[in-house]
Structures are given as structure tokens and as C-alpha cells.
């Protein structure tokens, strides 16, 4: 069990601070009197806001993590990342005339996707351990269901975008793959049945 009295020295955004070891990176900043709210979100690791670069004292390696989920450690260096400008890819699902045209439209919307040079930058950057590069490869081949399934845990933190030299916006490719799968292929008969019964007025409410 953690000892709440123990203090550690960390460097966050270039400021040296001394804080209890039970705090997350965000809590540590607040504790030291830096009232950061930029990039603070759900504090549970699902909103993707608090992106940080982390280097631990025993290594030269830099990792990308979520600030609310990262506990401070002795000698740790942390840098908050600002959000990149939003990707230039825009589309609406309605612009895809039918499910035969998804692949064609995909390449119009994400023309860079097929230029992936397999540098693994996106997969390495992903704080959720998603096989991002594999997902892009599948989407390029038109295998959208398989591609989308890889992105179940994607929190849209855009770190893969930052890590991509071709500006593919891999997370948006993943989300596109997920959205077309639902939009064109989810047709639950139990739902359709119920909608029909409500439409015809067969099901009504007697209020108390």
C-alpha cells in the first residue's frame, strides 16, 4: 500500500516541484499552486484531454500518457501537450450514397491513408495500446468492420495524429470505420419491430 507521507521531486512543464507520491501529474500541478485547467477533463482516462510526454529517471525513453492516470515518481519529467489543430478531413455519413461506395468515398476523404509508410509512429504513440497502424491498413483495404473493432478503446486523444508523418489522422480513420459499420449494417430487428409498433400507435402510455 502506498505511503501517503512520502514526497517526490518531479519536473512538470519545466517547473521543479516537490509533492506527495500518491498524486497524479495533474493533482501534483494543482498541489504546487499551478492552477492548470487546460487539458483537464474526465480525470478517469477516457476523455483524452490531458496528454503528457513523460520521461522517467531511469531511462532516456519518452512515452505519451494521460496526465490523470500517471502517478508522479521521483525524478520524473512531464510536459503537457497542447492539442494539435483539428485534422482537415471532413465528411458526413450522408455523402456516402450506399454501402457499395464506402471504400471509394473513404479514399476521397482520407487520401493520405494509403501512403502509410509503416513507421509505427501511431501505434507507439497510442496510450491505449491500440494496433493503430494495422487499423489504417485494414481500412485502406476496405475492411472497415475489422479496422473499427481495433479502435474500441480509442479516446480520440489525437496522439497518433501527432505521431504520423503523413498526416493520416489514424484515429479519425478508425472512427470512420466504426461509424460506417453502424450506419450501413446495424439493422436490429427487435428495434425495428418496436419502432413500428410505436409508429402505429399500438403502444401507448397510461399515465398515473
Amino acid at each position, binding site marked *: *500500500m*502506498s505511503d*501517503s507521507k512520502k514526497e517526490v521531486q518531479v519536473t512538470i*512543464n519545466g517547473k521543479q516541484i516537490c509533492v506527495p507520491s*500518491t498524486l*497524479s501529474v495533474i493533482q501534483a500541478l494543482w*498541489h*504546487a*499552486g*499551478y*492552477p*492548470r*485547467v*487546460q*487539458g*483537464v*477533463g*474526465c480525470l*478517469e482516462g*477516457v*476523455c483524452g*484531454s490531458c496528454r503528457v510526454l513523460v520521461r522517467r529517471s531511469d531511462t532516456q525513453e519518452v512515452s505519451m500518457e494521460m496526465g490523470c*492516470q500517471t502517478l508522479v515518481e521521483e525524478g520524473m519529467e512531464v510536459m*503537457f501537450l*497542447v*492539442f494539435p489543430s*483539428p485534422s482537415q478531413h*471532413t*465528411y*458526413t*455519413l450522408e455523402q456516402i450514397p450506399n454501402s457499395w461506395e464506402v471504400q471509394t468515398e473513404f479514399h476521397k476523404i482520407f487520401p493520405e491513408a494509403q501512403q502509410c509508410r509503416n513507421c509505427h509512429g501511431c501505434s507507439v504513440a497510442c496510450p491505449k495500446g491500440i494496433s493503430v497502424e494495422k487499423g489504417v491498413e485494414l481500412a485502406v483495404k476496405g475492411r472497415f468492420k475489422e479496422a*473499427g473493432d481495433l479502435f*474500441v*478503446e*480509442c*479516446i*480520440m486523444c489525437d496522439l497518433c495524429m501527432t505521431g504520423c508523418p503523413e498526416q493520416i489522422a489514424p484515429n*479519425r480513420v478508425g*472512427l470512420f470505420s*466504426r*461509424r*460506417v*459499420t*453502424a*450506419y450501413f449494417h*446495424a439493422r*436490429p*430487428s*427487435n*428495434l425495428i*419491430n*418496436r*419502432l413500428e409498433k*410505436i409508429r402505429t400507435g399500438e*403502444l*401507448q*402510455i*397510461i*399515465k*398515473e
Partner: protein
Amino acid sequence: MIDRANIGTTYREALKRYRPRDERPLPEPGIDDEKLLNKFHPDHIAESLTTLKVGINRGDPCHRQLADLLQSDSRINEADLAGAATVETDVLVIGGGGAGCTAALIAQQQGARVILATKLRLGDSNTVMAEGGIQASINKDDSPQFHYNDTIKAGHHQSVPDLVSQLVLDGPDVIRWLIQQGMQFDLDEFGDLLTRRAGGTSADRICFYRDYTGLEMMRVLREAVHNSNIDVWDYCPTVELLGDDLGGCSGAVISSLKNRKYIQVNAKAVIIATGGIGRMHLNGFPTSNHFGATGDGLILAYRMGAALRDLDSFQYHPTGLAHPFHLAGSLITEGVRSCGTYLLNSKGERFVDELSARDIVAASVIRECREGRGIVTDDNNCGVWLDIPGLELRQPGILQQRFPKLMRLGEKAEIDLTKKPLLIYPTLHYQNGGVVINENCETSIPGLFCTGEVTGGIHGRNRIMGNALLEIISFGRKAGMAAAQRRKKKRSSQLSIEHLNQLRRELTNMGLSMETEGPLLFPEYAKFDLDSDYAGLRRNRGSTS
């Protein structure tokens, strides 16, 4: 602080004694529900309640911490408006969660110019954290009527029947709309929607996507908003609404955190979708809520003269994590209990039907802890076991398949969920009451609409799982539709913050302190104020540590 009598078995001792078992009998209930709630539910802590002294709800009971903000001074005065840039729009949406995004999307579709102003980033909200699912009666043995009955009963018969009726009949169409936005749901081998049961309900009615329902919903809605013509302003909290000479609301004053300047937005309709109050940490409870859930919308609407309701009724989710310390308050989805997970006290006994309404289960957990049958950690946190290993024993493989987010939590907490139970204690989760609305999300103030958790009346005094996600989409659509209708109207040309003068007069007359400024905007421990640097690169004046 939380009134936990920290007596009980130590964490280490209890863990040593714990054995996974597949079956455990449910004991007879020893106390009736009303008595249980009165004695153990945090809403009934007498010292926490007060009576409102100013405003339209004068005389109504209210939680003390909320009352302090409802009766606080504004952050601005006339001089602040003099230098502010002015922007015109048809519809201003305040809040960037599920309700705000939905309202904005629909209003824009109707042809309105829309600005969406959000305190943090688009999608930073409680929606993204919702795990369990969304209610819609779609199964053969279920009906909208059963859904209606369950909602009314769980809300202790305090819900508004017309609102609930509209909600339940809209359920299936909400699911269809979400699928059309590209949201996935878990389906069976035939492509039908899978469902599970929520506590306190009579049928399997929760549609879900793993334990990531809110995340899936929010990333789809956010993508839809980003690909629309909606003008999104991030890091732009609203500090006041604008009134007009006809007694209506015609815009708002927004504070841009990026350059510390005020902007006046003139609008034909304003939709408040600011969510709840978890980060007020009522009664010192931890919360499962998002960083921005500080009740801002309630304060803004109340000053404008909009009526509120049920200001003394909050939901404490039964299963917040109580150990380890740095993750305390994190939510464990009710979905785990709807699949059949038991709650156990330090003796390894069940003590409540785990699928009772949330207020009953939460009160029962507090009772076990207060009467010495809880488990106490080294940090002096008390709780009971959520017997997840027992579930895995009965349904091998279910954790991996259905609860990936929970497994992640286990990893972070360094607890092997197939072998060890989790220690849980209730966490502040939801504001049951809020701004009074009608079926079109209109408040008592013309031009002012509210939708989502900021409103009251749908859930009565207790909400069932899955009705919040349904509400934000169902009523978000109504709000967007109704607000967009006002785009053709002529807006009053006499806009002001005159209503603040009346507020200040009333506060003075009642002898109330004007020291507190509202809305809160950020929890106290962030030490943030409007003159702070939002990137936290500069220390607050007077900070020593």
C-alpha cells in the same frame, strides 16, 4: 466530511478471509426502504440542508453547498460588458457534452446559426464516462409502459408524468438516431440489440456497447459536430445570461480563458446543457463526475428567474472505488451488478438485493459500514466488497468479453479481478433535480431552454441506470428543435444584465454575504480563477508550496 464510522475489519484481514464462491444466499431484508433511506442516505443528513432565502424558489429545501452558490454574487458587472466584443447568433448552446452536442446538431439541421460554448473541450463531459448503457424498451416482453412504470416508481412518484411518457416513447427512436450517427451497440448473432437489466427495473432494457457506451456515444457525436457548421468555442465558460426588456433571455456573457476577455453573445435562443454538480463534492463525498461538473447552469438559470426543483435530492452511485487511494471515487458500472455480481460485507455475507434502486443499495452499503460490518483501509477509507471473482466463477470469460474498461481499472489498481474483490463505497454521481422544463425543454423564461442533467422532473428523486443517456439525446433533440424555431423571430434590442441588480438587492436585504462569487466554474482544489493562466504556467499569487 463523509460520515463514515471507520470501524470494521482491516483490508488485509478481510482479504485474507475472502474466498470466491459461486453461490451466496440473499438474507431477508431487516428494515423497510423508507426507514433505511431516512437513516442512512446522505440526502437525509439534517445539517446539510437549508432553506433558500432569495429567488423564485424561496422557502424550498436545498443542499447547503448548492444554496451558497445559488445565493452568491455574480462574477461580472456593467463595466465588464463595456469592453466586451459582441457576437450575433440564432442559437447559443452552453455545454459540450451529449445533450449540448445533440441540441446543437438538431438546431443547425433546422437551419439555425449555432454557437456551442464549452468550459473545457468539446466532449469533456460526464457523457463520455457513462459506462452502463441506455434504456429503450425494445424486447418482446417489455413495453414503454413498463419503462414508464419503472421510472416513476424508482423516482418515488415525484417525476413529471408528461416528461417521462415522452421519454419512454422516444427511446427506440433515440437508438435509431444514434445508429444513424454511426454509433455501435452490442448485437447478438442475428444482429439484434443485446439488452441487460438495470437495478430497480422489471425487464432487460439497457442497450449498451461493452462498458464504453458513453465513450462510443460521445466520440460519434463530437465527430458529427466537428463535421458540421456549428461554431465551437472551447475553454469558454459562460459567466452570466443576458436578459431583455421583455423578461426573456437573449444571450450570454462568456469568458474566454485563452485571452481572459469577455465576449457578449446575443442570441434568439439559449440552451443550457451544463450537466451536474459532482465536483461540488456534496457532504465531502468523492465523485464519479467530470472535472467541469460544478453546477454552473443551475446558478445562471436561477438568477435569470427560472424555477428549479428537487434541490435536496442527489444520487450517490453505490459502487465507487474506495481503494486504492489515488483512484478513489472512480465508478464501477452497474452493468457488473446487472450481470449478477454480489455485494458482500466483511463477513462475506450479502446484505441487499444488488439490483434494488440505486438509493437503496447506496444506503445499505453505508449502513454496513456504519454498523461495523465494513472493511477499512490503511488510509481510513471504509467500504464493502464487490464480488467480481464470484461473477467470473459463475460466468467464465465474462469480464474480458463485456467489461474491458473494468479490467483496465483492475490493472491500474494492481488487483487481479478474477481472484480479488474490489472495495467500494458510494460516490456522488448525479443531480436528480434541476431546472423545471416542459416537453420542449422550455423553462419559465422565454428564450431560455435547458436539457440534460441540469434539468429536473424526469427522474423524480432517484434515477435508474440508462435513463440519463436516453434523456440527453431525447430531450437534446427537443431542445434543438424548439430553440431553432425562434431563429425567425425578432430579438429584443434591449439586452442587459439588469437582473443582477435585483439579485444584489435581494441578497443585501436578506443579509446574505456577497463574498462568494458564482458560478463556481472549477472545483476549489484546482485553485483556478478567471485571472489565472489556464495552462497553469504561472503560479497563483500568494501560493507558497
